[in-house]
C-alpha cells in the first residue's frame, strides 16, 4: 500500500515538474513578438501577437474569410493571397491548390501561422462579410432529424445576401465542445426578408454543431453568425434549370425559388428532392405555394426507402436515378445541386454524361 502511494506521489511529482517546465518553455518559444498584418496594400493594417493562425486572427479583427470546416484544413475555402511573410507552403495546403494558385502565393489562411510581418490580398467582397448578433425566435422540428432554426438579427439588424449563399454559425463552448467552433449553414429563407433568416439543420451523430443545435439551443438564445459566403446562387439565363437537393440541401434551393417567385423569374425548372421516406419530406406546403407562383416549376420528390405506410406511388430510388430517367439531352440545361457529397459527385457525373457542361453545374457540398 505504502509503495503504491509513494509511487503515485513520485510519479505525480515528476509529471507536475515536467508540466511546469513545458509551460515555461512554451512561454519562451511560442512568443513571436508583435507582427504586423497588412491587407490590400495597407487598406487595413493592424498589429497582433505572433503565433496565431491567419484565419482566426483576421476573424478577431472583423474580417471574415469563407470557411466551411472551421479551420481544420479540410474544406479548402479559406484561400487568401499572401504576398509576403507566410513561410513555405505546407503539405496540408497543397491538395487544395492548382498550379496557378501555387505560383500566385494563394494559401489556406487556416493553416498559415503568423510568425512575422505579413502582407495579404483579399477580394473587396470579403470586407462586406460581417458578424451578426442574432436571437432564436423559433425552433421547429421539420422531420425527426431536421430542425428549422429561425433567427432574428439584432446587431446589425439587416443582412444582404444572394439566395443560395450560406452563413457561418458560431457554436459557443458547451459540454460537447471545449472551444467555440464555426459551421456553415445555407440560408433557407427569402432574401427579401432582411431582418431574419431561417436555417435548416440536420442532426449528425456526435456532431459538435448539430448536437448543440438539436439538444442545447433554446428559443430566446443569442447566437453569433457571420456571412454571407459562397458562390452558389442563381445565374441569370433562360436555360432549363434542374435543381437537386437531398435532406437539408433543400435549404438554399428554397431561397433561390423564393427569389424566382419574388422577381417573377419564370424559367422552366424541375426540383428533385431526395429523402428516405415520407416523414423526411419537409417544406411541402411552401413548395406547393411556390408551384402556384411559378407556373413552369415542376416538383419531383424521390424516396429512396419508402415505408409500407407511406403508400408511395411517386418516384423511388436515389434522386439521381429519377434525374437519369427524366433527362435525355442536358446540353441546354443548368443544374443547381445541394446536399451530401456522395449525391453531388454522382449527380455531377450523371449530368455531365447527359451533356450539361461543367460550367453550368453549381453546387454546395455539405461535407
Amino acid at each position, binding site marked *: 500500500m505504502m*509503495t503504491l502511494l*509513494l509511487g503515485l506521489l513520485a510519479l505525480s511529482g515528476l509529471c507536475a515538474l*515536467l508540466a511546469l517546465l513545458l509551460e515555461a518553455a512554451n512561454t519562451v*518559444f511560442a512568443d513571436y513578438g508583435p507582427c504586423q498584418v497588412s491587407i490590400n496594400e495597407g487598406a487595413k493594417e493592424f498589429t497582433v501577437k505572433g503565433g496565431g493562425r491567419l484565419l482566426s486572427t483576421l476573424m478577431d479583427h472583423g474580417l471574415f474569410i469563407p470557411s466551411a470546416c472551421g479551420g481544420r484544413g479540410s474544406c479548402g475555402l479559406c484561400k487568401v493571397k499572401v504576398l509576403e511573410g507566410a*513561410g513555405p507552403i505546407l503539405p496540408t495546403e497543397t491538395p487544395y491548390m492548382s498550379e496557378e494558385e501555387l505560383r500566385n502565393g494563394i494559401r489556406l489562411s487556416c493553416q498559415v501561422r503568423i*510568425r512575422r510581418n505579413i502582407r495579404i490580398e483579399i477580394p473587396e467582397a470579403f470586407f462586406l462579410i460581417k458578424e451578426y448578433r442574432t436571437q432564436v425566435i423559433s425552433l421547429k422540428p421539420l422531420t425527426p432529424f431536421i430542425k428549422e432554426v429561425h433567427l432574428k438579427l439584432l446587431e446589425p439588424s439587416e443582412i444582404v445576401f444572394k439566395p443560395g449563399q450560406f452563413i457561418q454559425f458560431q457554436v459557443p463552448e458547451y459540454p460537447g465542445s471545449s472551444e467555440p467552433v464555426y459551421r456553415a449553414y445555407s440560408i433557407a429563407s427569402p432574401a427579401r426578408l432582411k431582418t431574419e433568416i431561417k436555417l435548416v439543420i440536420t442532426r449528425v451523430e456526435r456532431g459538435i454543431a448539430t448536437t448543440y443545435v438539436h439538444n442545447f439551443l433554446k428559443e430566446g438564445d443569442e447566437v453569433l453568425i457571420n456571412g454571407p459566403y459562397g458562390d452558389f446562387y442563381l445565374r441569370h439565363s433562360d436555360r432549363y434549370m434542374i435543381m437537386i437537393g437531398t435532406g437539408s440541401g433543400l435549404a438554399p434551393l428554397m431561397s433561390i425559388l423564393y427569389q424566382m417567385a419574388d422577381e417573377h423569374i419564370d424559367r422552366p425548372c424541375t426540383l428533385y428532392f431526395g429523402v428516405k421516406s415520407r416523414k423526411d419530406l419537409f417544406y411541402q406546403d411552401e413548395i406547393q405555394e411556390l408551384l402556384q407562383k411559378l407556373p413552369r416549376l415542376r416538383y419531383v420528390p424521390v424516396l429512396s426507402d419508402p415505408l409500407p405506410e407511406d403508400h408511395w406511388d411517386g418516384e423511388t430510388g436515389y434522386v439521381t436515378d429519377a434525374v437519369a430517367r427524366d433527362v435525355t439531352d442536358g446540353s441546354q440545361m443548368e443544374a443547381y445541386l445541394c446536399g451530401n457529397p456522395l449525391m453531388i459527385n454522382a449527380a455531377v457525373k450523371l449530368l455531365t454524361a447527359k451533356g450539361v457542361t461543367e460550367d453550368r453545374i453549381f453546387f454546395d457540398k455539405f461535407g
Partner: protein
Amino acid sequence: MESSLSAPIIFFASIFTNNILLANFLGMCSFLAISRELPSAVGLGLAVTFVMTCTTALNYLVYHYLLVPFHLVHFRFIAFIIVIAAFVQLVEMVIDRYSPRLYVVLGVFLPLITVNCAILGVCLFMVIRKYNFVQSVAYGFGGGLGWMLAIAALAGIREKLKKAPIPKALEGPGISLIVAGLMALSFMAFSGMIQMG
C-alpha cells in the same frame, strides 16, 4: 556490478557494432517512414540523437535518485516514457520555432519520436547493463548517432534507388525493407568486436 566498458568504447560500439537500429531493430517505423529524402532523415536523426542523449541523462537521474531510493524501480517504464514524452514536446516547440520547414516535413512523425522504441530501448539497456552516468550519456549519444547514421544511409540509398529499375512489386516499402536487411547484415560484420552485454 558496474559495466567494465569505458565510455568511449560504449560510444563507439553503440554507433557501429551494436547499432540500436541495425543490431536491435528498434525504431523501425520512423526509420522506414522518414527516409525518403536525405535532409529530412538527417533532421529527424538529429532530433532523435538530441532526445536520446538528453533522456538517457534525465532518466538516469530519475532512475537512480527517485526510483531506486524509494524502491519504485518497477515504475521505470512509466517514468521513462513520461520523461521522454515531455522532452519530445520540448523539442517539438524548439523545432517549430527555429526550423518551421523541418517541422512541416517531420509533421506527425515528430510526436512519434515519443513512441520511438529505440529511445525507450536505450534507457532500459542503460539500466540493465548497469552503466554509470557518463557511460549512459555516452551510450545515449552514440545510440542516437548510430540511429542517425542508419537512417541517413538508408535515405541516401533510397535517393539513388529512385533512378534504379526496381521491379514494380518491390517499389516503396518492399525495397526499403530489403535494403534495411542488407544494411543489418553488413553491420553484423562489426558485431564480434565488442560485447556490450
